[in-house]
Structures are given as C-alpha cells and as structure tokens.
C-alpha cells in the first residue's frame, strides 16, 4: 500500500451523529446512509445505519444520539464526493411512525475535525385535505428514496418545510489525495508542499 504511484485515494470518515434539535418532537431515531458517485467504493465500515430512539432529557431541548459513524471510502475521482443523508423519524400524536426530517451534507474535504449542523426538512402535503388525512392516518408524505435529498435532480417538483437541525461531527483522514494531484488542505500546507517540490528540483 505504500507505493509511490497510488491508483486510489482513501477517505476515512469517523464521527458521530451527535444530537438533534427538534423543538416539538420527542422519541426520535435517525437513519443515515451515504450517497456517492460511481468512482467511489466503501472499503470498510457501515454504509447505512439506524440509531436508537432517543428522548429529550429533562429541561434540555436537544435529542442526543451520539451514534457513531465509521466508514472508509476509496476513490479515483473526487467527482461524486460522498454525502451523508440523515433522515429522522419518530412517532406522531397517534403513535404512528412518521418522518421528521431529511437532510444531507457533504463529507468534509479537509482532514481534521469538523462539526456540521444540517437543517432538516420534510416534504409538504400537496393539499390541505391531503395534509389533514395524512395527519389523521399517520402517513405523512415521504421521499420515495431518502437519497433524493442528496441530489438536485427532480427537487423542483417538491415543496418542503424546514424542521429542526441535526448536528454531526466528523473526523476526516485522507490518504494519497495529494499524490493524485488533489489539494484539499489550506494555503499554508500548500506552500510547504511547494517548497518541497522546489527542493526536489
């Protein structure tokens, strides 16, 4: 693996879905999955997961999951950089399991620790009557595939309402990105890289 001419670069993601802030709801759980391009392949770790149900603490407004994420991708092309899609579910007034929010965010590019807060949203019913019946029957509109929220195509037909936030924490390690010619680090390290090449020259 320590070859000088790597064919792939690796992106190691670990972190956690820390907490969520859904002011009106309680007893929520979340699901996550990754959406990535054709050139990406997970080498280890879980691509999808479903968390425990968490309840609000007394007096606290946030729902804490601390649900770990750990996945490593390999890729040949930054195109289709992975995104994490989080969808949150929980019971409604009648105890039906309904969706409380969808959200997606790109995995950070740069190595290091990142904390991301994703605004969550749910699709709206198409009419008032639909809204009422969906509330009554506990079958709210959902995305056919949560991965829709990670892409732009087809979103123009939907109407959504924002609802809560989810906070995620990522620790990113990359390997061989620079060797393949992708610079993701800041100016400072770029400068050091430059001096190194000049020394080589």
């Amino acid at each position, binding site marked *: 693996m320590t070859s000088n001419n790597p064919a792939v670069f690796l992106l190691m993601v670990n972190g956690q879905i820390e907490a969520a802030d859904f002011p009106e709801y309680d007893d929520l759980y979340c699901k996550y999955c990754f959406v990535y391009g054709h*050139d990406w392949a997970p080498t280890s770790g879980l691509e999808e997961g479903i968390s425990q149900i968490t309840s609000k603490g007394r007096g606290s407004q946030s729902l804490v999951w601390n649900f770990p994420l750990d996945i490593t991708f390999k890729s040949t092309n930054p195109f289709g950089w992975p995104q994490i899609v989080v969808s949150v579910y929980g019971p409604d007034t009648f105890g039906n399991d309904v969706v409380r929010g969808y959200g997606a965010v790109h995995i950070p590019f740069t190595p290091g620790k990142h904390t991301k807060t994703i605004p969550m949203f749910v699709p709206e019913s198409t*009419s008032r009557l639909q809204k009422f019946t969906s509330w009554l029957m506990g079958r709210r509109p959902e995305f056919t595939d949560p991965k829709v929220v990670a892409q732009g195509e087809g979103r123009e037909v939907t109407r959504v309402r924002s609802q809560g936030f989810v906070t995620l924490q990522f620790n990113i390690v990359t390997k061989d990105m620079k060797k393949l010619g992708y610079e993701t680090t800041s100016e400072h390290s770029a400068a050091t890289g430059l001096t190194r090449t000049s020394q080589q020259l």
Partner: protein
Amino acid sequence: MTEKLRAAKSKAASLLEQESIIEPASRLQSLRDRDTLTRFDRDTDPDLQADEDSSFAARLKFRDAARRAAKDKRAEAGLPTAEEAYNFFTFNFDPEPQQQRRKKRQSRRREAEEDGEGESGEEDEEGEEEEDLFIIDQSAQDFLEVRRAEYIGYSRRLQRERETLFVPSMRPVPASSKLPENVRPRYLEEEGLYVGERPHVCLTNQNILENRILKQAEGRKWFGDDGCIIALPDPIKESSSRPPLFHLEDELDPALQAVYRKALKTKHVNLYIAGMGDPQADYQLDVDVSGLIFSHHPLFSREHVLAARLAQMYDQHLTRQHKNLTRLLTDKVTQKCASKTKLPALSQVTQQRIAEYKHEVRHTRQLRDVEQEKDRALLKSIIRVWKELKALRDFQRFTNTPFKLFIRREKVDGEQDEQEFENDIMAEVSELEAEAEEDYQRKMSEYRRQHEEWKSWKRKQKKQKKKRQQEEEEEDEEREEELGEEPEKPEPPEKPDTGDLEEQVREKAARIRRKPGEPVLIPELTVSGPITPNEQCPRAEFARREDVAKRALFIKVLYNDKEVSRTDSRTLNMDFRVHFGQIFNLKIVNWPESIKLQVFESVGSSTSQLTEVCVPVPESSVLTGSAPFEEMEFSSNQRVTFNHEGVGSGVPFSFEADGTNTQTLLTSGKLSCCVSWAVGEDDVPLAPPSSQPGGGMYSGHRQMDAIACIGASGLNDMKKLGKWAAESRLDPNDPNNASIMQLLSVVSSGDVAVPEYFRLEQLQEEFNFLSDEELQRSRRFRLLRLRSQEVPEFRHFKCVPSMEREVSEKVFQDYEKRLKEGEIIDTKEHIDAHRALVAKYLQRVRESVINRFLIAKHHFILSDVVSEDEVPSIGGPGAGVLGWNLFKLAEPKRPLKPCRKERKKVTAQNLSDGDIKLLVNIVRGYDIPIRRPYASKPPASAKSGRSFTEPFTAPVSSQTPQQGSEWPFGQVTPLVRPFVEVSFQRSVLQTSTAEGPNPCWNEEIVLPFSAPNGDYSSTSLQSVRDEVFINIFDELLYDVVEDERERGNTIHTRIERHWLGSIKIPFSTIYLQSRIDGTFKVSTPPVLLGYSKERSLGSEGGYDAVRSLSEGTFLSLFITIEPQLVPGDTVREKFDSQEGERLLIASEVFEKEASGRFPKRPCLTTVIDINGKTVFVTRFIRPLNPPQELLDAFPNSPQETAEVVARYVSLVPSLPDSVSFAGVCDLWSTCDQFLTLLAGDEEEHAVLLCNYFLSMGKRAWLIIGIAIPEGPTAYVLTYEQNRYLIWNPSTGQHYGQYDTFCPLQTIGCLISSDNVWFNIQPYAAPVRMSFDVSKPNLWKAFFSRAFPDPGLSSVQPEGLVYRHTDRAVAVELQDRIEKVLREKIMEWRPRHPTRWNRYCISTLRQFLPKLELSGGREVAEEHRLELQSLLGEYRISGFPLHLPFSEIRPIIEAVHSTGVHKVEAPNVEFALAVYVHPYPGNVLSVWVYIASLVSAH
C-alpha cells in the same frame, strides 16, 4: 469621640429633617400621590392588580388602605414610617452622604483642633478607622436587616411574574385621570371651533390604547385638553398613497391599458472585443471635446448672421488657399505639356500616349479654369458680405461682432506677369488650334468618304434610271420608293477660325482670371474690432445680449447609445463659441458601435437637446496625441423666435428694411472634438487589433472614403482594391490618394492579414485549460464523458482510474465495435439485404427515440420524488377507503377463499444481482396430447370433426373420442408422462413428471434473474428482451436392459423427452404486469408425430365440457417477480403535436375522465407516431387494400379470405415497442412504415388488420384492451353475420364474442376511423358486454354533438403497394436456413454422431408446402398416415414449427428449445426440412420440420 461623632450625625440628621420639612406640605402630598401612583404601577400587590378593573377612585382608596396596612406592619417591626421610608427611598442620596461625611469630618476636624494639635496625626488614622467602623456599624443597624432566607412560593412567583406583565383594561378611562388635577375638560367644539370628524375606531381598542398610554411614565401628555388622544383631525389621507389596482374586469381607459412590448436585447451586449481575455489588453478611447462654434444660433443678431457668413467664407478661402488647387493644376498642365513635347512621335504606342496626354491636358485645364473661377467668385462674395456688414453696422449704430476684414494688395511684377499670362493664353490657344485643326482634319476625311459614297450612289442611280425605263410601272414605283432616301450631298467642313479662338480664350481669361498686372488681393479677417458695450445698445439688442448670457451648454457623451459622461455646463459667449476642453477616457469592453455627442442647451433650469453628433469610431491607428481635431458640423431644425434682436432659427427674416429677400437659417455649428485610442504607459496603444471585422464596416473616416466607395467587400479583398487602383490610374502624388497608396503598399508587403473566421465566443478560449484535441485524446476524460452521457456500456462504470495510463484501450473496444456495427450490418445475421437495411433504420429510430427518452427521464413529477397517500375517496369505482370499504371490514373472513396479499413494492435502485427471482408456479395442464400406439395399421379415420367454419357456427356437438377403442386394452404404458421445463436466461429448471393428459403439478420454480450490465433501473429492466420459455415435454422411458437375466435386479432405462408444446412469455410483460395469472394456450405444432390430440373419456367432470369446445392444450400458470418491482412509468413528456390545441385538451380530458371512472380500462385517444409527434388515434384507421393475391386465393369464401388476410398480418414479425424503446412508450407507425420495417407490436398488427378488413367491406373496429399474456394490447373486432368476432392480430386467430378462452380479458375502448368509444359498461370482459356503440349509456363517444369531429385526415397512405417477393430469394433463404440449422444441431450434439435420414427429409419437404397452403390444419392426419406407412419401422417424433421470418436467431432458438437434438439413442436419425413461403411485400412464412427417428427394432 464616638459620642461627638454621634452628635454630629444627629445634627446632620436634624438638618436633613429640616430640609425636608421646608418643603411645602401640599407639594409633598402631591409627590406622595404621584409616588403611590408609580409604586402602584411597579410594586402593587398582586391582589391589587387583580382588582384593576375597578374604577380608579376605588383603587386609590384601596391603595390607601393597603398603604396603611403596610405602615402598621412596618411600625410593628420597628421600621420607620412610610414617610421616612419614602424619604429614604426617593431621596437622592448620592450627594448627601458625602455632604454628610464632609460635615462630619468638618465637625470632627473642628473638634480635633479643639482637642489639640499633637495627637492629630495619629488620631487622623485612628479616627478614619473608627469612622469606617462606625459606618459599618451604622449600616448594619440602620440599612440592613438580617432575615431568614425567603422562600418564594409558586403562587407568589406567579404573582411576581404577573407583576411584570400588564393587561390593559378595556374599560373607558375616566376623564379625570387623563387630565391634570383640577382641570376640566375643554371641548373645542363647544367653543365653536371647527373640529374635524375623526374616523371611527372601535371603542374597546381606543380604551385599550388609552389605558396603555396612561401606564407610561408621562402618559398624560398624550391627551389633549378635551381628554382625548391628541391626533390630527382626520389622519386619513384624502388620496390613496398606494397606486390603485386595476382589475381586468373593470373597464379600463384604453389609453391606460398596458401595452405588451417584447423585451429588447441590446445589440452590443455580447460584442466583446477579441482578445479581451488577456489582462493586458484593456482598451481605452479618449474622447476630447474641445469646443463648439455656432455658425448659426437663434440668438444671432443680423450682424452675427453676416459675420458668420463672412467667417465661413473666409475659412473656405483659407482652405482653398491652403490646398491651392489652382496652382497644382496649373503646374500639372505645364508638366504634362512638357512631357508631351518630350515624347518622340515615332511609334504607334507613343502616338497613342500623346493623344492621351493631349486629352488629359485639356481636361486638367478645364478643371483649373473652374477652380480659378471659384476662387475669384469667393473673393468677390467675401468683399460683398463685408460691405453689407459695414452697412449694417452703420445702420444699427452698434457693433456686435469683432470681425474686421482687411484686404491686402500684393504688388506683382507687371511685365513678368503679363508675359506669363500671354504665354498661358498662347499655349492654350495653340492647343485649341491644334485641336481644331485635328478636328477639321477628321471632319475632312469624313467628308471625303461621304462624298465618295455620294458619288457612287449617283452613278448607280443613273444606271438604274436607264434600266428602269424598260420596266413596268409597278416596279418603277417600288424603285422610286427605294431610292427616295437620297443621301444628302455632304458639305465640306469649314476651316476653323483661329482668330476667333484667341478671342474666346482671352474673354474667358478676363472673366475668371486676374488681369495681368493687377495686384493680388488677399483678404485678412481679424477679430480685433471693438464691440459696442451693452449700455450703448438699444433695448432690443440689450435684451438679446441678456438672453445670450443666460444660456449655457453642455455635451453628453454617449457610447453605444449609453451615456457615459457629460461635460461641465459652460455659458454661451457673445461670440457664440463654447470652449469645453475636456477629455474623457473611456475604458471599453464592448466593441465600439457608435460614439455620439449630444449638445444640450440650458436656459435657467430647463434643458433642451440641440442636436446630436455622431463621431466615427477611430481606426486603431488613430492614437491620442497624433490625432487631429475634427470639426463635426451639426444642425438642428428647431424653430425659435424671439421678440428681441435675435433672428431666431427656422423662421424667415430679412436684412432689407422692406422685408424682401427673406432667408431662413437653421441652428447649426461645428463641434470640435477628437476621438482616438489612448496610449498606454509604455507607449503601447490601447487599441484593439485593426483586424476587427467590425472596424472597417463602421468606420466613417474620411481617409477611408475611397475604400468605402468600392463597397464593404472590397475591404477584405485587397487584390480587388489593387486592381481597381491600377485600372483607375490613381495619381500617386495626389494627397487624396495617399491613404489608398499606403494601404496598397502595406497589402502588397503582406503585413495586414484579414482573418477568415468569425469567433462566436471569444472568451471561451480563455477558460479552456486544455485544448479540445487533448481532451479528445485523453482516454480518461473520454470515459468520464461517455459515462455522463449515459452510454449503455459505461452507464454503470465504476471507479474510473485516476491516471490516464491506467485506462486501457480495451475499455472502449466493445463500444467502438458497437458503433462500427451500427454502420455495417452483418448480412449473415439477417440473410437478406432488405432486412439488413430495415434493421439499420430501426436502430437509428431507436437511438433517436432513446435519446429523447434519456432527456425526458430526467423530468420528475411529484410522485417520483415524494410518496404520498392518496386522499381516500368516498365510494366511487376507485379505492373507496372511507366508503363501502368500511363496511367490508365487517365482512366475515373467508378462510377458504384466500386472497393474494399485495406485496411491498421495491424500487429498483437498491438491487443487485441475485436479489431478483422469477417465480413460476405451474399449476396444471389440460388436454396434453397423448401418445399413439405404434399401430402398424393406420386408423380408419383420424380426422376430427372440426371444420374451419366451426367458430362461426358455434359448434354444439362436442368432439367425441373416436379412437378410444384403438387403444389396446389393458396396456400398461401411460397415455403420456408430461413435465414442464422452464428456461430463462440460460437457467433451465423442470417440474417433476406427472401422468396423464390432464396433469396437476402445482410446483413452484424459482429462476434467478440478472439485469443487463447490472443495471436495475426501471428503464433497463424494461428493455430486457429475454423471454421465459415454458415447454411441455413427454418423458419416455425405454428399457435398455439387454440381458433378460439382469432384469430382475437391475434397472437400466433411457429417458427420452418429446417436446409437446411451449409458451413464450417475454420478461417485459411480466415486469410490466407484475404478475401473470391464468390459463394459457400452449402453442403446439400442427402435427405431432407419435401423438394424438385425444381426450380421455369422462376423466373430468362437467367443468371440462365448456373448455372442450375449443381445441388446444392449456396450462395454468402463475408467474411473478420476487420481490415485486415497481414498473417504470411511461414517459410523460409532452410531445409536440400538429393536432389542434382544442383536440388535445379534449383528449386529455377524455382520458382523465375515463381513467377516473374505470382505472383498469385502458383508454387511448392520442398516440405517438414514429417521428415522436402526438397524433390522434383515429387518423390511423383507414381502409387499405390487402395484397391482391390474398384476395384472389379464395374468391368465393369471404371467411377464408379473412383468415388468410389475418394470417398474412400475423406473419409480419412482432417486436414489442417496450423492448425496442426502453422508455415504455408506444410508438405507432403507419401501415406503410410497418410493412417497410416489417416489425411492429400488436398495435401495428391490429391497425393493419383493421384497415384490411375495412377495405374488404367489413365493419371493423380497433379494440384497446388487456389480454393475457400480452397485457395492454390491441385487437380487432369485426361484425359479420350478426356476430362479433375478436381477432388476435399477432397470431391471426379469431374468437367469437362468447368464447371463454379468448385471451382478451378487458375491453377499454373501440376505435374506428371517425370516433373513439370508451367502455362505460359495468363489465369489461367481452363475454358480458354489448358492442353496440350507438348506445350512449354503454359507450362514451369522444366526438359527440358537443364536440364534433373536426374532420381529421388520415396519416395512412392512400393505398399500399406490394412488391412481389421473388420466389428465388425465398428458395435461397430456405437453403441457407436449413444449412444453418443442420450445423447448429450437429453443434449441439458434440458427443454423438448426427445422422440424417434423407428419405424422411424429402418426404417432409414435400409435405411442408401443403401445410402452408392449409394454414397448418386438416392435413395433419393424412400426413401422419403417409409418414407412418413410409417409415413403419421407425419410431418418429417430430413436428413442424411455424414462424414469421425476421431474423435467423429466433428460428435457431425455437428449434433448440424443442430439445429434439437431445435424443441420445444410439441409433437415432434426424430429419430436418425447411420451407419458406413468400408473401407479397417481403413477408415470409418459415416452416421448419424437425423429427427424430429411432428404429423400432
């Protein structure tokens, strides 16, 4: 010490007391009152707060009581009284404690002084210490109170919270609280003052507001004398501040109606200058506006007019002098004369040159004369105008203009001058003389010639006269007429008079030239003259001057019609000159189209545009510094009149007193400006390259005039220009031609290259980080690009390598091969060239349609993205969740009638190989053919009683088993041991073996499914072309134990299987239908050797009685896909259409309504034709002639003709659209397209069949319905002999309306050539329906009285032309198929020799044409008998296969699926015969007879 201090303190306290006492009691009272008020606001007890609704007075009282109570409480606790407390809290203590302390200190000082000086130092410290202690002591006692920690109860906390909140009361506020004490409300109205009526405000709201205001610190100031809130009398504005909203319904003044204007795009928006991309190239135009001179202005006085004219003439004079044309021409004349004389008059060439010279000299001289005359005239008029001016000045007795003309006389040397003059005249005269002489000579020669002619004519006439005397009169007359035109006798020309000439020349010279010896007059105009000051002018002139002083001018600079800047405003001077002297630097991005200067004149605050001057865009060689100023003349046609001395403009005026000789002058002048390209810091011109295409076009530069006159194209064609210059003999010395000469020299040196291209997006190149070629060459980019284009091979390519070198060329091999194949059609595959072409065409259509769908696929609707429950409807034909379905919940469960549960549907995205399985449940079979015994004797009659006409006559007599008796009684061998083999995608599975002709398997077969390229998206799944083959075989066991002794303990049998029939179901059908459930007819060969289609007697009950009516083998199947896949929706892209908008809307409404009422019945009004356009479906129906041969085949029997036609249609190969066009979109082709392509799906077959039937005079309709196993499909309905017949166009079979085994299950709509009817009957099965479309309660017509048929023309051709198919081609094809099949069979039997029985083959070959003729019926038994007799010693099993011909591959597959080749008996022989029957229009019917022969011995 402490005592002293205490005393001091008490003193101070008493002082304080006194101070407070000094204040008047009343004020204290009021203060206290106010204080309570405020306290009430802030600290009132909650119980008080609760009682807020009570009146104010009551509250006051209550508060007093409360205060008292509090006082008591405090008194008990040994606290100071309320007053003290009040003082304590309200007093401003800040300064006082200090004061107090100062006092204390002072007192202490005093005491200390009294005590003595000695201790003071120590005491100071001590005293301070003590003082601190004392203060602490005191504070502890007086200000602090130690109490136990207070617990605030919940209710109290609530109360406190409520203290901070305030709910304003809705009760009216008493006037007393709104006004200062003891003031009565004053009502202005009562005092007689006008008070406006306030707008109505809800009283409660007003009260709330007043209450709220009163709670504020200075609430009372909001109230006026009358106790009301101070407000404007009427705060409502008279006029609305918002613009009124106009509604379309309202009658709007037409003048106010908005007019729609299309948005205009600026012409110059994207005209960037080429090469703008590089950062150095910023271009700058310098516009230098130096000044303005009016040649006429409305404020000109008469004198000004004359002066301006004078100045103008003088300018003209100066320029003429500067050019000095006269001199130039004179020089030229002399030079020419000199060169003429120099030439030796020898050769022909030189003589010609001399003649040319002469001509030129004459021409030049004429020009010179004209110029001289002009010069003289100008001089004369200058003098005349000056005289007029002087006269005017004298007349009006004041001077307005400083002009003064001096005329300088320049003395000339008289003699020399005279001599020159004389010389000149002499030269001219001599020239003229020479000319005249020449002319004379020419005329003389002419005369001589004419004279000769005349003489000869005379002679002739004389002769003729002599002749004529002998001729008749008639002729004479004619002759006379002929000779009537007698040529005049030419006059000899006059000799030119030289003396006369000289006189003429002299006279002319006197007129236009200065007399010799006369002094040269040189006018000089100066501006040194005095101007009469304002005071001395008459009133009118004074007014004019005043007016002039008021005027100011400025100039706007417009670049590409946009104002970029403007000059300062300058006042107009007395001399009507304005100097601006401003330079504007324009940094430009867009190509300059126009530069305009607008002159504005302002009088006071009003500004008016005088004129607009267009400045030409400079050549790129015109640079700042070197560019000369140009004077742009302008004029404006304003009409201005004044009542003072100003002459105005555009109005006539006169210089004469009597008003004659009027003239009209317009405002005009000259604008001096200079537009040039700036020069950068390092002397780089900031100009775009001169090769700009626009440059020459828009250049109005004077220097380029010569070029412009050739036309714009000449600019680019320098050769043409050079040619023109050579032809027109341009004078290289002429300064006017200098620029052209220079240009030509540049061109010939090749410095200027005009680009031959026009760049559309100049900036694009700057963004390319790689040239296109390089990008093309890169394999990696190519791969990425192909993938993003969703090319099938690469659509799911994973992990494109990161490095170019890692992408191997192999990746593209398949793709390139496919591309190449698109061009070269493999003729081997297709056998005949026509089909190859068709396949190619089809491929192209498919590609274009697929591309269209790829685009459409990215259009989403809500249901694609969001899954949402339908609103439950109450009742209705749909899922009435809230309606009757509620009652269904109460229904008793019926465990004996289980319903299939709906499975959860799986979206195809997250599937992978192995996830999908095909479930085939084979329930049972009916009427499977049974084996025939090997009777050496043929049965007497094997012919079934069924005749062709049977379907039409509804047979009632059931087919009786006639041959039951033939079976040897007590035979042990079963009738048949069938099993079912299912093959799909190379996996083959089979059921166990059952026994008997009506077996029951009830077995489930699970077949794996894998999608092509691992793509499980719905589009890909739809395009899967695999088919599920379900074959029924008979298992035969042969005992091969050769030794009889072993029979006891060994079983050695050979298993043979005989194919009995098959069912083919395309995967796409299963996918789209999600499940297929029913009893299907097994397609059995017309002849099955060794088997007979018999029914065992009475083995089944009465149930079979119905089924036995129809012939054939049936199989009950249930096929589905596990997990259930969501079939892709049809593309909802709206295709463009040529149908009328109204029709399209109507059809949409019709379809919507239909699907709303009967969601399960297909309704079709518009279809998409092969060009991708929406076409109304009735346009496809039109009577079309079938091939004549078919009609001639059975001239007497219309039924048989119909059958033949149906058979013909069914022979056109079928190709489902959903397979060819992966977007599940029905494309309909017209019949001629269909017959040309020779491929189409059920709709095309149905349309063709329907059209044929119509042309045959039948009543026919197209049925859109659902059938098994095809799914939604099209059938044809005909009405004959009072019966309705349903035709399956793909098989050519027909069913009666009441045929239970008709595959058509649901009828959605009927289509004829003029209408569409939707089925609104309660039942959709043909058995339970009425086909009478005239009943509106059963059939809903599309075109009704409300929406009549607009008369749609058909898209079908007038008639079909059939090419006669060559018999030879068919024979050739037949041979090729046979050869291929034989090779294949041998290939499939790699371990066994394949022997062919020639005798059998020849028999079969003879038999096949008979089969074709009979359509596969009737001859079966005869044939079998024939074979049996011939091949008695063989056990034959075999059958003919009948297929329409499209490609050879399906034929091979069909043969393979029968498994005939699998017979592994050692002595097996095979027979194979192929017959191709040609039908017109290249439709071929293929028969393949395959049989295996095993020797019975």
